[in-house]
């Protein structure tokens, strides 16, 4: 069995594991950044002592990752407090801050926040005043590219904590064909006790789907899909969730990525989905599934051609053809 398949099984139905190849499972979980989530899913199961010790350490590590992520959010809040700019936490930090099931064992790398587009430069200045620094040369092509075409500032890194922050003003590059309504994302965000906000439940799913299906090459996609599984299972307890999700997905022009993400979550993690929103299975779902599972028992990525196809697709989605040519040309000329 491909180890990615084993990882998916272990997350979906841990009780069905029968003397698996533990080293392969651990390698896949680490490669997919799901070791923390796996550690909590396998709690209370009868597993070999060495693996139990690894998973226990992974749980403790996840707790520390959570502390760090929440602290970065808090330091960002402090830095922006006097500007009164509304700050919406995104992705992993948002799950942790809102205490969602998706945060259990969830790894977090950078801090991602969403602010109104017309205040993004003010936010950047306040962050720089509070100790964050620009990472890339401020006069290079990359910087120009970011500012003109991307949905975020060039990343900033904190001078003493070495942690990165990505300041977004929307959730897809401006060049991508769908145009999500960033104002609505911010207007409907849910404020937390700290004063920071997170996206509304439906928007959170829309963002996760956009990130997975419409904005990347699906590398590391098993974790994003696991987020979607956990979020959907928790949010679907509210009867208004599915109709709201359908409406929001349409509003943000992301119906198809949302439907695709839901179908993939269903295929891999047996997520209960509303057929009216997820749509009928399509043949191409299999390609996506194969791409997500392209990892062997040593943690190596397999199926090079398929991965390359998705890589090209990710650029195609982000840029109109002429711009893609210009981008690749500028990169190549260095």
């Amino acid at each position, binding site marked *: 069995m491909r180890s990615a398949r084993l990882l998916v099984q272990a997350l979906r139905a841990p009780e069905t594991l029968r003397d698996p190849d533990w080293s392969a499972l651990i390698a896949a979980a680490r490669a997919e950044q799901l070791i923390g989530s796996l550690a909590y899913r396998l709690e209370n199961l009868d597993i070999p002592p060495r693996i139990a010790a690894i998973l226990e350490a992974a749980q403790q590590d996840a707790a520390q990752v959570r502390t760090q992520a929440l602290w970065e959010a808090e330091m960002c809040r402090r830095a922006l407090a006097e500007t009164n700019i509304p700050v919406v936490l995104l992705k992993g930090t948002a799950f942790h801050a809102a205490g969602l099931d998706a945060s259990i064992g969830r790894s977090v790398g950078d801090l991602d926040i969403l602010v109104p587009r017309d205040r993004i430069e003010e936010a950047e200045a306040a962050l720089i005043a509070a100790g964050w*620094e620009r*990472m*890339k*040369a401020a*006069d*290079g092509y*990359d910087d120009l590219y970011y500012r003109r075409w991307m949905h975020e500032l060039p*990343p900033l*890194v904190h001078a*003493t*904590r*070495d*942690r*990165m922050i990505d300041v977004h003003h929307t959730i897809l590059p401006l060049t991508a064909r769908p145009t999500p309504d960033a104002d609505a994302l911010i207007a409907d965000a849910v404020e937390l006790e700290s004063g920071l906000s997170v996206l509304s439940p439906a928007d959170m799913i829309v963002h996760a789907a956009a990130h997975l299906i419409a904005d990347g090459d699906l590398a590391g996609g098993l974790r994003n899909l696991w987020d979607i599984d956990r979020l959907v299972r928790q949010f679907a307890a509210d009867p208004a969730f599915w109709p709201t999700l359908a409406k929001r997905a349409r509003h943000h022009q992301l119906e198809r990525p949302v439907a695709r993400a839901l179908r993939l979550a269903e295929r891999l993690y047996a997520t209960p989905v509303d057929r009216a929103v997820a749509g009928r299975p399509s043949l191409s779902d299999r390609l996506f599934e194969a791409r997500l599972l392209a990892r062997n028992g040593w943690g190596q990525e397999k199926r090079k051609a398929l991965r390359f196809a998705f890589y090209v697709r990710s650029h195609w989605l982000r840029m109109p053809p002429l711009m893609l040519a210009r981008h690749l040309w500028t990169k190549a000329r*260095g």
Partner: protein
Amino acid sequence: MSGTEDKAAEEGSVMPSRRTVLVLGAAAASTVVTIRPALAQTAGSVLNCEIPVPGPHAAGSHIARDGSLVPPGTPGAAPPLARPLRGEEARMLLRGSTPPGVQPGSSQAYANYIRRLQSGMSGFTCYASLQMPR
């Protein structure tokens, strides 16, 4: 104000006695050292790592004396290095000496470039691994 003072006087037991001298120091002094993650000496000694100067994100740029990236032809700027620095060469530069094959006049620019490397940039983990406590 007096109310606050009374309250504080009651709590005074947790504080040292009066007349102890407390030096607030100069504005530029530092009384807090934060422990940062140290990939440490370890990676430096156990790994074989490289620092491209400049990194691929700025290929073709020249390096000013302060380590910043400038367009080719800028007066006083050092040209890109033909091959990445090895850990030991980077360490020599940071100590102020010039490794073989590097123009002595350019070594300060390269050293400053390395010092300005930040997390996420090519070569950073290598640089981090060269940070030695003394």
